[in-house]
């Protein structure tokens, strides 16, 4: 009974990959910790958690999307759009702030749903769809905002982005909850299982009476919804709203997912892997910065780590097959 696998494709390999990644992570942390005594402090780590939340919230549904063999590069633009909608509907349409928040989440979900519909109904390949909507959503954000940034939110609004509960950043708690929810959903539910089936063999999934299109729609809509949530957190953290928010988040999120061992071709991958990937990137950036490595050099290191880790993982995989 204990042998029940945790994921679809060759379970042990995935687990193996995550363990290796985790090991690398731990080693890196210890190393960086030795180099700088301010790195491995509760404060710093919690603070990093605060800073990685926005991308993290996006990386979770991105994992779902990539597991189905798709991809969503429009998430960054959706963050921008949602942020603007939030601010605009509050400031210019006079929505009460809570309503504005809900509204922007709704818009996010709708945007994601639009992606999903184009992909499932019109059958435009995901990457093409989302590249096009990337421009579209960003454009809508600029158009709606007319380049005005919205500021001066009430104090309570900042609690999510800057506040803390028992010393833990509020948004980090949200991220943790989201991680558990998404992790369980992917690992334990029929929804998650269907995601894997779609990614491994869409046709067979269809012929197994699985609601392929609905599940894909859900995945992309979720991606939009979480972009909205991410936008909410971001606006609350930086106290202002701009149409260029979330630029480049898509690549950060994808990097985290891929680093976490999710196959870009779909059918395999876990939330836990994504989380490790996410933490790894964030803490590498932070740790390197603290040890005096400049931002530009850090980016280089991230790139190398990304390629190297995937190389190791795949060579391992090949050895086992």
């Amino acid at each position, binding site marked *: 009974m204990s042998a029940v696998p945790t994921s679809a494709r060759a379970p042990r390999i995935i687990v193996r990959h995550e363990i290796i990644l985790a090991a690398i992570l731990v080693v890196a942390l210890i190393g960086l910790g030795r180099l700088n005594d301010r790195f491995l402090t509760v404060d710093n780590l919690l603070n990093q958690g605060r800073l990685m939340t926005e991308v993290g919230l996006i990386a979770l549904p991105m994992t779902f999307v990539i597991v189905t063999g798709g991809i969503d590069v429009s998430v960054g633009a959706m963050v921008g759009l949602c942020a603007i909608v939030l601010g605009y509907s509050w400031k210019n349409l006079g929505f009460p702030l809570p309503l504005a928040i809900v509204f922007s989440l709704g818009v996010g979900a709708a945007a994601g749903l639009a992606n999903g519909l*184009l992909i499932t109904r019109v059958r*435009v390949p995901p*990457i*093409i769809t989302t590249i096009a909507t990337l*421009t579209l959503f960003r454009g809508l954000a600029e*158009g709606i905002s007319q*380049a005005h940034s919205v500021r001066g939110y009430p104090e309570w609004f900042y609690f999510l982005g800057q506040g803390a509960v028992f010393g833990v950043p509020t948004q980090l708690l949200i991220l943790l909850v989201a991680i558990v929810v998404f992790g369980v959903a992917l690992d334990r539910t029929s929804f998650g299982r269907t995601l894997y089936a779609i990614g491994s063999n869409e046709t067979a999934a269809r012929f197994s009476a699985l609601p392929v299109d609905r599940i894909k729609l859900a995945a992309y809509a979720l991606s939009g919804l979480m972009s909205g949530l991410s936008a909410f957190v971001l606006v609350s953290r930086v106290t202002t709203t701009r149409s260029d928010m979330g630029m480049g988040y898509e690549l950060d999120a994808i990097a985290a997912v891929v680093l976490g061992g999710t196959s870009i*071709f779909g059918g395999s991958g876990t939330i836990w892997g994504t989380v490790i990937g996410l933490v790894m990137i964030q803490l590498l950036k932070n740790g390197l910065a603290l040890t005096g490595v400049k931002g530009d050099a850090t980016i280089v290191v991230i790139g190398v780590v990304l390629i190297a880790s995937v190389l190791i993982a795949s060579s391992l995989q090949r050895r086992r097959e």
Partner: protein
Amino acid sequence: MSAIALPRAAAARAPLWRRVSSQETLLAAAIIGLAVVVGLINPRFLAANNLADILLGNAYIAVAAIGMSMVIITGNIDISVGALIGVLATVSGSLAVAGAPIAVTWLAPLVLGVAVMGLQGVVVAYLGIPAIVVTLGMLSILRGGLISVTGGKWITDLPDAFHLYDIEIFGVIPMPVAIMAGATILAAAWMRWWPRGRAIYATGGNAEAARLCGVSPRRTLVLVFLLHGFFAGVAALLFATELRVIQSTTPSGLEFTVITASVVGGVSILGGVGTVVGSTLAAILIAEITSALVFINVSPFWTHAVQGALILATVIADIVRRRRRLAGDVR
């Protein structure tokens, strides 16, 4: 890149030209149509020099899109090209300022481009790492690396001879346009009539089959990346010699512009289909749209939204067309 890897059938007994040209004709029509519409609203748009400027200012995107199309046809993708172009332009410019012979400054980006892309090609083909991952990593390596090295110092007072852009063939055709057209035609012909060119489609369509036909998918893939690097080098050259200043940073988002040109040009991300003529036309169309929006006084705040919508429309048009053609096959 998804489970929809089932081969897309093409129309039975359709003459080859029809199969490969439909998206191209659609684009050509769009380009002319748009020109006419905008011309009616604002005749200045049709002024020869404006049309020329649209081509001139975006030739480098079209050239980069040639290589990108090849990569996509093999079923891969490259998101490092934008950063690479930035790096190559900087290298070329630095050499020019350092007083290297012009020939060298022009060849360097080509060679270096081929080298970098070749490396990525090898990793993708022989180590089996998905191209999107490799190039994503390379993207940040190049972006960060460039700044670490140059500190982002602008490259100024370039020697006049360096400026490819000022050369005009027969005193009429500006160099960039000539290069864009030439590269497109050569690449298209090569992919149409030369065995190795055809092999690209074979690899994208059915790698296993290609292998058993004595076409090595891996070698083809590496070759494609090498060529992609070459075209990236040419693009970088155009990019570098257009202005008197080289920013020596990586133009952000350029990779998406190039990929967009390819897919709008009718290159299927699922591999096996598409032509570089299409991608070049698409690059021109996109540039035309950008310029047109200014001419018809679309609020600058909305330009990106309109662009996105139009791009989406073209892509959907392409997909729908293919689907209808496919439906036509089923009796």
